[in-house]
C-alpha cells in the first residue's frame, strides 16, 4: 500500500519531505539566526524564513559575515576609540566623552550591557564589533539602540538617559586607558586590527571628523608624540584652523538658527538646497532638549556655509558618486558618464552598502566590482557624493539616520580631504506616494531633514536635488519618472544640471596646504598616498568669489 502510494505521487512526497526539512530548519532557527525576520506563523510558513534568510546570506548554520561590513564596523570602532582617547580639554569633556564612549560601545549589542568592561582596551572595542555585526544583520533594531546613543542625550531613546551618569564615569576611565594604549604608538592598534591598519595610510586612519571641535584635536595633537599620529592630527588642525573662515574660504554665508522658521521651511517639500542645509535641530532634539552647542563633532558649527556655485563638468573629474539605483541611473543615462566615478547599484542601502562588491565605473575603465571601502581606499577623491535612502524607507528613520552618519564617518575617515556631499533623497511622484504607505514624500522629507543636519558647512554639505526636479507640491512630475521613483533617462540631465549648479568650490590653497604639511612631515611612506590624490584642481580653480 505504502509502496504503491510512493509510486503514485513521487513529487508530492518529495516536496513534503523537503518541505519538512526546511520547516524544521526555520523553526530551529527562528529565535537565533532568523530572529531578525518578522514572521507571522498564521500566514507565513516557517520555511519561508529559510528562504528570506538565504536572500540575505543568512543560513540555518549561521550568517555569512560580510568582510566589508565587518571592516567598516572596525573602522568605526577604532575611530570612536581614538576619539575617546584624545580629548583632554575640559570644556567639552562632559558632554562629549560619554558620547564617545557610547560610540565605542557600538560594538555591544544593545541587549547586553557590558559597559563596565568596555573601553578598557582597543581590543575590546573591536571584538564586540564583530558581535554587533552578526546580530546587526539580523536585528537592525537592536543596532539602532546601540548606535543611536551616539547622539547627545537620549533624544530618541529615552531609555538612554539613565545610563548617562554611569557613562561619564566610564568615559573618564576609558579615555585614560585608551590614550595609554595609544601613546606607545600605533603598534598596539596595528596588532589588534591588522587589516585595517596596514591597508590604510596613517593619516587616513587618524583622519576623523574632528573638524567640528578644533580644541579637541589641538590638544590631542599636542599630547601625542608619535610622529605619524601627530602629523595627521596637525594636518587636520590646519584645516580646522582655517575653518572659521578667513583666508582661503570664500566668504561664508552665515545662517542663524531660527528653529521655528527653518522647521517650517524644511517641512515644505521643496526647499532650496541652501536652505535645506540649515540644521534643523528640531528633528534631532525634539521638544525642549535642544542643547546650546551641538556636542557631536559631525554636526555643524551651525550656520556656516560655503556658497553653492556653478561649475563645469570638469569639476566632477575627481569626484566619486556613491549610491543606489538612482545614482546608477545617473551613471547610465546622464552625461556624467565617462566624466566621473561611480559606485552604485540598485537596492544599495546604508544597511548593506559595505557588504558586497558593487559595480564601480571610473572614466576610461570598464565596469569592475569593488567594495565601497576599497573604492574609498584606493584613491583619494576631492568630492564624494553620497546618495542613499530610498531603499531604507521601510526601516526606522532613526536607524537609517544613524547608519547614514556612520557611512559619512567612514567616508570622512578614508577620504580626509574630500568635500562630502550628502544628497537629499529624491522624492517620488505624487501618484506613487499616494498609494504607498512607505515610499512617500512625507517620509522622504522627514529623512532629508535629518540628513541636512549632517552638513557642517565646512567639508560636509547637504544638497537637495528636489529643488530641481519637483513640482510646486513637492512631487516628481509623473512625466519625469515612469515608475514613480526613478528619473527617466532623459530626465537625468536635470540632476546633472543641478549638480553643476550646486557645487562647493574650494580654492587651490585649501587643497594644497594641508597636503604640503602632511607630506613634509610624513616623509616617503606618505608620498604614495599623495600621489594617489587627484592631480589637478585646474578646472575648478576659478577662484571662488565672495557672494
Amino acid at each position, binding site marked *: 500500500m505504502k509502496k504503491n*502510494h510512493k*509510486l*503514485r*505521487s*513521487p*513529487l*508530492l512526497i*518529495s*516536496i513534503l519531505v*523537503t*518541505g519538512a526539512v*526546511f520547516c524544521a530548519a526555520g523553526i530551529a532557527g527562528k529565535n537565533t539566526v532568523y530572529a531578525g525576520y518578522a514572521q507571522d506563523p*498564521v*500566514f*507565513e*510558513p516557517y*520555511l*519561508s524564513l529559510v*528562504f*528570506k534568510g*538565504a*536572500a540575505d546570506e543568512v543560513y540555518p548554520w549561521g550568517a555569512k559575515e560580510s568582510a566589508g561590513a565587518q571592516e567598516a564596523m572596525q573602522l568605526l570602532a577604532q575611530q570612536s576609540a581614538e576619539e575617546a582617547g584624545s580629548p583632554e580639554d575640559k570644556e567639552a569633556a562632559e558632554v562629549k566623552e560619554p558620547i564617545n564612549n557610547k560610540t565605542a560601545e557600538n560594538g555591544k549589542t544593545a541587549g547586553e550591557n557590558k559597559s563596565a568592561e568596555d573601553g578598557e582596551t582597543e581590543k575590546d572595542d573591536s571584538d564586540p564589533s564583530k558581535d554587533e555585526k552578526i546580530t546587526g544583520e539580523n536585528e537592525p533594531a537592536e543596532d539602532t539602540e546601540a548606535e543611536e546613543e551616539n547622539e547627545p542625550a537620549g533624544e530618541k531613546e529615552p531609555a538612554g538617559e539613565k545610563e548617562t551618569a554611569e557613562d561619564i564615569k566610564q568615559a573618564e576611565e576609558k579615555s585614560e586607558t585608551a590614550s595609554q594604549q595609544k601613546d606607545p604608538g600605533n603598534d598596539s592598534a596595528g596588532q589588534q586590527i591588522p587589516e585595517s591598519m596596514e591597508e590604510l595610510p596613517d593619516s587616513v586612519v587618524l583622519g576623523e571628523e574632528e573638524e567640528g571641535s578644533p580644541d579637541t584635536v589641538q590638544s590631542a595633537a599636542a599630547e601625542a608624540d608619535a610622529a605619524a599620529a601627530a602629523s595627521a592630527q596637525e594636518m587636520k588642525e590646519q584645516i580646522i584652523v582655517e575653518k572659521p573662515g578667513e583666508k582661503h574660504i570664500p566668504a561664508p554665508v552665515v545662517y542663524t538658527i531660527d528653529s521655528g522658521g527653518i522647521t517650517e521651511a524644511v517641512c515644505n517639500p521643496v526647499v532650496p538646497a541652501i536652505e535645506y542645509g540649515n540644521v534643523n535641530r528640531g528633528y534631532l532634539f525634539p521638544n525642549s532638549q535642544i542643547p546650546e552647542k551641538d556636542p557631536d563633532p559631525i554636526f555643524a558649527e551651525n550656520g556656516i556655509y560655503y556658497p553653492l556655485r556653478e561649475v563645469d563638468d570638469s569639476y566632477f573629474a575627481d569626484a566619486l558618486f556613491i549610491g*543606489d*539605483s*538612482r545614482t546608477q*541611473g545617473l551613471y*547610465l*543615462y546622464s552625461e556624467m558618464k565617462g566624466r566621473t566615478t561611480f559606485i552604485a547599484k*540598485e*537596492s544599495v542601502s546604508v544597511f548593506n552598502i559595505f557588504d558586497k562588491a558593487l559595480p564601480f565605473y571610473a572614466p576610461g575603465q570598464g565596469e569592475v566590482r569593488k567594495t565601497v571601502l576599497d573604492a574609498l581606499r584606493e584613491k583619494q577623491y576631492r568630492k564624494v557624493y553620497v546618495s542613499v535612502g*530610498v*531603499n531604507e524607507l521601510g526601516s526606522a528613520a532613526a536607524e537609517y539616520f544613524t547608519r547614514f552618519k556612520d557611512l559619512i564617518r567612514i567616508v570622512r575617515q578614508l577620504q580626509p580631504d574630500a568635500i562630502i556631499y550628502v544628497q537629499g533623497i529624491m522624492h517620488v511622484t505624487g501618484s506613487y506616494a499616494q498609494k504607498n504607505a512607505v515610499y512617500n514624500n512625507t517620509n522622504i522629507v522627514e529623512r532629508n531633514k535629518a540628513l541636512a543636519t549632517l552638513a557642517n558647512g565646512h567639508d560636509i554639505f547637504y544638497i537637495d536635488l528636489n529643488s530641481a526636479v519637483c513640482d510646486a507640491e513637492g512631487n516628481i512630475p509623473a512625466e519625469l*519618472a*515612469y*515608475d514613480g*521613483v*526613478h528619473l*527617466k*533617462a*532623459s*530626465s537625468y540631465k536635470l540632476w546633472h544640471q543641478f549638480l553643476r549648479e550646486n557645487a562647493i568650490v574650494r580654492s587651490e590653497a585649501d587643497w594644497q596646504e594641508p597636503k604640503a604639511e602632511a607630506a613634509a612631515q610624513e616623509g616617503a611612506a606618505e608620498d604614495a598616498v599623495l600621489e594617489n590624490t587627484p592631480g589637478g584642481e585646474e578646472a575648478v580653480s576659478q577662484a571662488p568669489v565672495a557672494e
Partner: protein
Amino acid sequence: MQNIVLLSSTAFIFRFLPVFLIVYWIAPKKLRNAVIYFGSIVFYAAGSPIFVLLLILLTLLNYMLGVFSWQFGRAKLPEEGADPDPRNHSEGETDQEENGHLLPNAGFDEEAGQHHEPESMLKADNEDWLIDIADKIELQTKNISGETDAAEKTAPARSSYIEQRSGKWQFRSSTDPKSITSAGRSVRSEGPAAHSAAPSAASASAASAASKTPAAPVKGEMGFVWAVALDIAVLIVFKVVALKWNAELFPLGLSFYIFKMISYQADLAMGKLEKQPSFMQTAAYFTLFTQVTQGPIMRFGEGNFAEPAKFSLDKLEEGLVYVVLGLGMKTLLADRIAILWNEIGKIGYESISTGLAWLGAYSYTFELYFDFWGYSLIAAGVTVMMGFPFIENFRHPYAAVGIGDFYRRWHATLGSWFRDYIYIPLGGSREGKLKTIRNLMVVWVLTGLWHGGTLNFLIWGVVVGIMIVLEKYPLKPVLKHVPMFGRLETWILIPLSWVIFAISDLPQLWLYFTRLFPMLSGTPVGQEMSDLIRLGSLYWPYFAAALVLCVPGVFKWILKNRRHPLIVLALTALFWVSVYYSANMSGNTFMYLNF
C-alpha cells in the same frame, strides 16, 4: 495576508491550500460544494473584504434568476431537441461537443481547416503524447461517441487532461484533422445552440433576441434576460467607475466571475445542463477560489459540482505537477522578464534604441504569456488536486500558425466564451461575409474592452480583429500554402499587438512605435545599441528559457516523464527555487521594489 489571493504566494501555497485540501477531502461528499463555497469566500475576503459582499450578492441573485433561466431552457428543449442523449451527458460534454461541431463553421475556427496541415504535422510528432481525458469524461465521451464519433473526438480540447492510463501517455491534438470531417455533422446541433444562445450576447442583443423569439413568450425567459442584463450592467458600471474615478474601486476578479455567471445563465437557458444545479453547486462554481480572481473561465458543466470526485492520489500528484510548473513559469520567468519591461519604462521610451525597443516588445510578450499561463496552470492544477478536470487555458499559442490560430490557443476559455456567447448568437459566419466580418469585429472590440477601458485596449481589439478578418479572407490562400507566413505573423505581429496592449498612454504608445520603427518619426536608424547589449546580456537566459518553453514538445515531455526520478528531482528543485522568490517578494508584486 492580502497575498493569499495571489496563487503564487507562500501564504496561499503553504497555508490556504493545504488546509483547504485537507478539509475538502475529509468532508463528506455532500458537503464538498459547501467547503468550496466557504473556503472561496474566505479566500476572496482575504483579498477584498468589501467586495466579497458583492460576490455573495451576485451569487444569490444569479442563482435565483437562474431558476428562470432553467425553466426557459427546459421549456425550449423538447421542441429544439438538441440533446441526442440527455442521460449521460454532462454539460462539459455538451459544450465541447457543440463547440466541436460549431468550430469549423464558426468563423472563429474556420481557420482550423486551413491549419489542418501544419497542425497534423504538429500532431505527428506529438502523437505519443497525451492530452487525455479524465476517466469520468472519458466514460461519458464513450456514451456520446456512439453517435458523434468523430465529432466528439475532435472536441476541441478546451481542456487537455493528463492522466496516466495503463502507463501510456497519449496525445490527442486539439485540432484533429478529423474535426474537419465533423463539420458536416455539426450543423444539426448548431442550430439550436445558436438560437438559444442569442439572448446572452449582450443586453442589446438579448433584447433583440427576445424580440426574435417566437411570439408566445417562453416561460422563464424574462428571468434569463434580467439575469444577463444584471450581470452585464454590474460589469459595465464597475468598469466605468474604475475608469472615471479610481481603479481600486474595481472588484477583484469581477470580469472573470461575471463571465462565469453569464455563461451559467446562458447554459441554463440553452438547456445544456442535465439537472438543475443546487444553490451550493452554483455558489461553489461562481466563487471557486482558483478561478475567481483571474480565471480560467470554466463552464459550469466542466466542473464536477453535481457529482463530487473521489479522492485520488494520482489527481493530487497530477495537479501538483501543474502547480509546480505554473509556479516556476510565474516566478522564475514572468516576474524576472517583467523587470526588464519595467526597466525599459524607467529608461523612458524616448531614450531607448530600436534594438532595445524590440527586445522590450518580446519581453512584454513573454512576461504576459508566462505570467498568465503560469497562473492558469497553478489555478488549473489546484482544481485538479480537488478532483476536477484540467481546464486548459493556453495551448502553446506561440506554436500557432497565424493570428486566428493564436487566439484559439491563447486564453482559450475567454476565446471560447466570446465564441459561444457572442459570436455564434450573432450569427457566426453563417450569414455571409459582411455579417461575419461584423460579428468578428464586435467580438474583438468587446474583447478589447473587456481587458480594459482605455483607448489602447480598444485599438488592440480592433487591430487584432482586423488581422483576423484579413487572415480569414484575403490572406487565406497565403496562410494555407505558406505556413511560414502564419508563423511570422505569430512571432512579429503578435508581439507588436502586445505593445499596444501594454501601453495605455497613447502618445507614449506612439513614441514606442517610433522606436520600434525609426522611419515613423523620420529619425535615422543607427541608434546606438549599447542599451540593448547591456540589458540583453543580463536577461538572455530568461529569453532562452522562454523560447524553449514555447516549443510545445518541451512541456509535454515534462508531463510525460513526470514520474522519472530526475524529473521529480528537477520539479522539486523548481518548486523550492520558486518558493525562494515568492517568499522574498512577500507583498511586493514585483521584486523590483528594490531601488
